[in-house]
């Protein structure tokens, strides 16, 4: 069986996988990082989004062998080592942007990438369009959009906290 060596949330792992093993299976089954979820089988829902070398990818449609040598960040690795939440996580909590929590890890990881790649700032419409690859069945998205709008202010250093961004 092929071996894959990759760094996940700062920690290096070498794992034996089948050729058909998906990145999300490696994360969930081999490394027991169950924060990354699988919500569909057609690459529609985005519950499985993680960062690979800094880009958001759907880990349900990425083969594990493609990630040899890669740096992967999952929802478990987003907060600071001391547990301080990332501004995007904090904003989701502040704006009630999650209900059942199942889409949340993928939604947060997509949102972080979306904001990082748009330092000029995103309008409400652009945020809605930027969430094209993520489904949420609970919230109606409105609070997710508000949370991302607030988090981008903090991530780009324009506000000190997501609570301040609300004002």
């Amino acid at each position, binding site marked *: 069986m092929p071996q894959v060596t990759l760094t996940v949330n700062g920690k290096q792992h070498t794992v034996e996988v089948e050729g058909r093993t998906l990145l999300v299976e490696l994360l969930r089954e081999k490394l*027991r990082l169950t924060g*990354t979820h699988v919500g569909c089988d*057609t690459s529609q*829902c985005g519950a499985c989004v993680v960062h690979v070398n800094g880009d958001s990818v759907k880990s349900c449609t990425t083969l594990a062998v493609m990630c040899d040598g890669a740096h992967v960040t999952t929802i478990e690795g987003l907060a600071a080592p001391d547990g301080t939440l990332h501004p995007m996580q904090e904003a989701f909590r502040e704006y009630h942007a999650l209900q*059942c*929590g199942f889409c949340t890890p993928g939604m947060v990881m997509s949102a972080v990438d979306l904001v990082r790649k748009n330092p000029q700032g995103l309008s409400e419409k652009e945020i809605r369009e930027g969430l094209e690859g993520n489904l949420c069945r609970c919230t109606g998205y409105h609070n997710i959009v508000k949370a991302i709008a607030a988090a981008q202010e903090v991530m780009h250093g324009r506000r000190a906290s997501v609570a301040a961004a609300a004002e």
Partner: protein
Amino acid sequence: MNLVTPFEGIGASVKRKEDLRFLSGRGQYTDDINRPGQAYAFILRSPHAHARIAGIETAKAAAMPGVLAVYTSADLAGIGGLPCGWQIHNKDGTPMAEPKHPVLAEGKVRHVGDPVAVVIAETRARARDAAEAVLVDYEVLPAVASMAAAQAPGAPLVHEGVAGNLCYDWHIGDAAQVEAAFAKAAHRVVFETTNNRLVPNAMEPRCAVGDYDTATGEHTLYTTSQNPHVIRLLMGAFVLNIPEAKLRVVAPDVGGGFGSKIYHYAEEAIVTWAAAKLGRPVKWTADRSESFVSDAHGRDHVTRAELALDAEGRFLALKVSTQANMGAYLSTFAPCVPTYLYATLLAGVYTTPAIYAEVKAVFTNTVPVDAYRGAGRPEATFLLERLVDVAAKRCGFDRVELRRKNFISPDAFPYQTPVALQYDSGNYHATLDAALATADWAGFEARRAEAKARGRLRGIGISTYLEACGIAPSAVVGSLGARAGLYEVGTIRVHPTGSVTVLTGAHSHGQGHETTFAQLVADKLGVPIANVEVVHGDTAKVPFGMGTYGSRSLAVGGSAMDKAMDKIIAKGKKIAAHLMEASVEDIEFDRGTFRVAGTDKAKSLTEISLAAYVPHNYPIEELEPGLEETAFYDPKNFTYPGGCHIAEVEIEPETGRVHLVNFTAVDDVGRVINPMIVEGQVQGGVAQGVGQALLEGCVYDADGQLLSGSMLDYTMPRADDLAPVSVATHTTLCTHNPLGVKGCGEVGAIGSPPAVINAVVDALRDWGVEHIEMPATPQKIWSIIHGKSC
């Protein structure tokens, strides 16, 4: 130490206690659970809508590497069918047809996705590989994929012995009174509609893990369920014959339900049974494509209705004839949805004095249909609120004034409808007026003109709705055919140093119970929510419960907790009286403090709880130690949320695409415990309602193949399909539960679809359009605008 923070009690938008684990990837959903030695099940499902099984060849699959077992119905001797929890009676008093719903197909498959065999292997991939080697000899039969096909003369039978594929033919109301009213009506308005079939699509696919302890003989099922105690009862008593004391059902974090996770499904029984048979834990997790053909679907009604009005527009009578699709088998609560959760709601918010409704439930070769967010009430609301608009248009009344003229007056409560329900409270004029003001209804024509200048067609639509939550009381639902009670259970455990554990039979799968329920405790007992833990979803921890559906958790489950807290306070007063050498009658309790009336003598709840667990100075002759109380609460009635939803849309004439541009919801959900959570529930419900109105539709072809069988083909609402929703509440209190609460989980999905379609019809007023069936897709609208089909 318990410090009271006033901002944590009833009415505070407390941030959710559960968020931290969900945001950091530490939630524990069923598929996150892995038991030592776990094997994996793959369910082989029928690719045909209707076929006889001439034979199943499993030997080749069973011999493949890593395969532990292959089971078919032949291996399940002695195992019962999946039970139905509600029995409806026909017009003639005979019971409905209730054909067996086998765990694995017995001789015949009846819908695409019907489970035929299960392969259990060391890995999921090996189980799936081996399933491809199972040879099933199908003799394909003609299928009935629609209710029209199922009821055609000579139609193939889904179940031999169920003539005409008719499950039941039920009715409610006074037909003679309705006919008499129609005879003297100035206007008679006929309206026909189809309420589109939906696929619930909670983001977490269903999953079940069976485990068996050979030492104790205890079975454990971890499952994606909204009601673990109900699953324990149904599966233990009716399917696997396991006594409750030997069966534990755990529903951990559950990723959304919307009704689809109420029911007892075959896979739960399969993994529980197979784990004991093999002596290995067994996990099954659905693919999304599998969810589409195995989760119960929702809605799917075809209805003809007729409204009689007098010359001034007063509603005189309503008659309704509905066909409801049951799918191939009766899902757990399917029969009650188009009857007691639908036809009893046909008075809506109006004083219609005479109503008669008949409902035929029909078997088809499709996935079973059961309750989906709103369950019966969205179908009733869509029918009424479209019918009122159609009546206004045909008879020349203003659509808002026609509603107002027929509203039940705020001083008419309690109000007895002609279709069994008695509403306890509401103020439909107030919610209407508030919504009209918020939506700037009066200023709409200017916005329409402005949109027209931009080349867009703008419309506005209104819906004034009512629904019924917290289905109850047990004695009444029992007389109507329910095979269960509908109370709820709450335990309040005050620990020695004053922190509190709440055990509830309700189940949270997104609703935020861990926060809302903690707020109830904070408000009443004065314990800060940081010191309150809410435990749910485990039959080994929680005494009993009926679970979460029908917006019942707070109205029924919260009321049970409130009753348990009353018992805590009553016992605490006795302890306090002893400690402070006062009479029990003189002890007052207010948010954490027991006080001797008229004095400065006081004891905190913490002092009382410590005395209860360390009873050195304690009235031990009269009172047991400890401070823990349980209450079973059986409501006296449903609760009746209601309100007004207003949608504003713009249509692109070039493409037919509808853009939702404004949505206003003013809902009366009774007392609001956490406004932030209520607003989130309404927004989410509206999103699902807008999805039904504009995007979602489950489509079968004539052979019973599911054409909308993936998220590529079934249009789920995305962020850019929706607009901000303005949510406000206007409260009238529920008069019969101690909290005054009504329920907020379904109002959004109930009130919004007719508001959206009324707006779309209004946008197309220049084309003389009277009705557009849901979903109002670009294709339908483009065809209307361009006068041709595409």
